[in-house]
């Protein structure tokens, strides 16, 4: 039994750090201020390095990277604040296509996603359905060997830079909700698709996408008709493997330490010498070590070939909730100065903590809300009775 990272992972960490030193620039990070957490150059470089295809499971035809190394890659990307939102989506999309797609999707879309040449986005949520994802109402109606799609999707983040959307549609409204769903891979340049920006409190840009008599050949269908829930479940499975997101706090803590060393209070003292500040910093560092323990454990499970489930929910729940708490603590620590945004020339570290404070809430919402994750822990880990239908 070993609970620490094996030596090979630390060798790989050095490799990733070297890669980031060469390919990740301050400009790339600054460019995300436009709201799009994606850098085409970085995405291509990661793909060229073989890490995108590598993250796709070997049994599907991907590189089958060691999950422990994948964990290190995701950790380092996040510690360096690399704009890599498209990476996880691409890996999930490729995995879904390789598992459920037929020749057309496997031959044309998957290889170009793996090479980083094209991007995908996810079309699950709708204006009326978020956590209850199987309640999707976007309709796909068969017309000979074509499909006609009408409806709308919410939170199709990256749609404005992506080439494809993985679209969850309703193909049979007469049967129980999980049994009338079908997935499609839809080229975003198809006639009838409209993309509207959704601005957020965190400056991140998401999208609402609208589908008005979008006509699609049957070759774009992913999985069997009315079997979309099976495809959805594999998406959730692959999402866990590439989830990342366990290390949002370290940059915030580093910035807080930096501020606490530099700032001077009215009496001339430094915040870093205040016990309350030190207590919060230590507690945040402990939370980071808990996140790290979760991440290494799930990676080790995956490495042994054990598919983890609820552990992923626990990791995400703990990481996002503690991140929110840390952002609030350190915003408060700075008093009025904490409120200054990066537009203010005097903002500490370009307003890093303030920016994280506005970003943090979404992490407890997207990719499974904290409430859904608590339900999954209650049912799947503790064995409590199901409390909803």
């Amino acid at each position, binding site marked *: 039994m070993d609970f620490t990272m094996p030596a090979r992972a630390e060798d790989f960490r050095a490799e990733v750090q070297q890669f980031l030193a060469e390919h990740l620039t301050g400009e790339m990070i600054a460019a995300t201020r436009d709201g799009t957490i994606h850098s085409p150059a970085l995405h291509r470089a990661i793909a060229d390095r073989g890490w995108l295809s590598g993250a796709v499971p070997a049994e599907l035809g991907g590189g089958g990277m060691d999950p422990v190394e994948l964990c290190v890659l995701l950790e380092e990307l996040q510690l360096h604040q690399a704009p890599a939102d498209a990476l996880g989506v691409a890996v999930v999309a490729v995995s879904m296509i390789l598992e459920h797609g037929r020749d057309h999707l496997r031959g044309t879309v998957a290889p170009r996603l793996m090479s980083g040449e094209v991007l995908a986005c996810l079309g699950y949520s709708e204006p009326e359905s978020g956590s209850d994802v199987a309640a999707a109402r976007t309709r796909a109606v068969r017309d000979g060997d074509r499909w006609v799609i009408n409806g709308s999707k919410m939170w199709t983040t990256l749609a404005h830079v992506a080439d494809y959307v993985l679209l969850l549609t309703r193909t049979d409204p007469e049967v129980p909700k999980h049994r009338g769903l079908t997935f499609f891979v839809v080229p975003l340049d198809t006639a009838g698709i409209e993309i509207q920006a959704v601005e957020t409190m965190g400056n991140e840009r998401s999208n609402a996408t609208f589908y008005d008599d979008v006509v699609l050949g049957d070759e774009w269908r992913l999985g069997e008709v009315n079997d979309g829930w099976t495809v959805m479940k594999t998406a959730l499975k692959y999402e866990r493997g590439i989830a990342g997101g366990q290390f949002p706090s370290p940059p915030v803590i580093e910035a807080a330490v930096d501020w606490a060393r530099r700032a001077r209070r009215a009496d001339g003292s*430094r915040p*870093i*010498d205040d*016990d309350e500040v030190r207590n919060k910093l230590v507690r945040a560092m402990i939370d980071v070590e808990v996140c790290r323990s*979760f991440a290494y454990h799930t990676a080790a499970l995956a490495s042994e070939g054990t598919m983890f489930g609820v552990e992923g929910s626990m990791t995400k729940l703990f990481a996002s909730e503690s991140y929110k708490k840390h952002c609030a603590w350190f915003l408060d620590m700075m008093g009025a100065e904490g409120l200054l945004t990066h537009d203010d020339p005097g903002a500490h570290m370009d307003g890093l903590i303030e920016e994280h404070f506005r970003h943090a809430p979404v992490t407890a919402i997207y990719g499974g809300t904290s409430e859904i994750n*608590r339900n999954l*822990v*209650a049912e799947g880990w*503790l064995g*409590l009775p199901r409390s909803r239908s």
Partner: protein
Amino acid sequence: MAEAFGDLFAREATPEAVRAAEAGCGFDPDLWGKLAAAGAPGMAVGVADGGGGASLVDLAVVVHEWGRRIAPVPLVEHAVCARLLTSVGGQRDLVTAVTSGELIATLAPGPVEPGGTALLVPAGAVADVVAARRGDDIVVARGRPPGAARPNTADLPLADRDLSGAETVASGAAAASVWDRALAEWKALMAVAYAGLAGEVLSMGVAYTKQRHQFGVPVGSFQAVQHGLADAATRSEGARLLAFRAVSAVDAGRADGARLASMALLFGAESARFAADRVLQYHGGYGYSAEYDVQLYYRRAAGWLLQLGEPAAEIAKLADADLGPKAV
């Protein structure tokens, strides 16, 4: 091995046995005898010293089961002190008697004055051997244990011990590194014990809320209850993983071992207290009654950590190490 000890603790360290020990000084001599016969007290002492040669991680797996049953025997203090005695060398007879469990050993976590008394020593009520830090030395006192504890929240065998006759067994840099390692081992192992405690208290919570009906449905079907238990389970699992990671790091002598051990203990205690609090709450009035077992766990969840001293002092030490000392 873990399974065998797990069975032994489940069979012998029953809630009835825990309550019986509470009527005395928080110690169950029969259980200690059985553990000694099974080789537990010296399992993580080297074979050359007559021990079982198990690693700290192996010991931790047993400690997890010990924590699960809040077993009234000083397994962790004893095991850590036994390893300390072997690493300072010499005193063959003492090492042999401690390794076999014939003598019970412990350590006083706080520094003691020359000729002074160590207050509230963990397992002080029953330990024949007490190791302590005095100035730059490690000292060891041998003597009859008082056999009575100072009455306390968690019914732990805490007692004051006169260390005026203690003998120096290590000094200077060697003493510092042995002592720091012993404390790190105690913290990491107690963090694992806390994971065991939290796991068991959560099992109680799940069993009770599935069986207890109110408003015509199981209490455990209410989301308010489910989400409290889910938060407790999540923190407790994180605490368990961090605790074992800390044990691995301490065992391997890694530079971050002491830091992780301290963090694991603080987080483990906090998570276990949160779990015990939620489970007591979801038992309603019965959770508060002496008849139910939750209260046994609730009190120990608070007590184990405080044997070390103030949590704030532990946090301050972590802060000094990670942030540099405070300006004065």
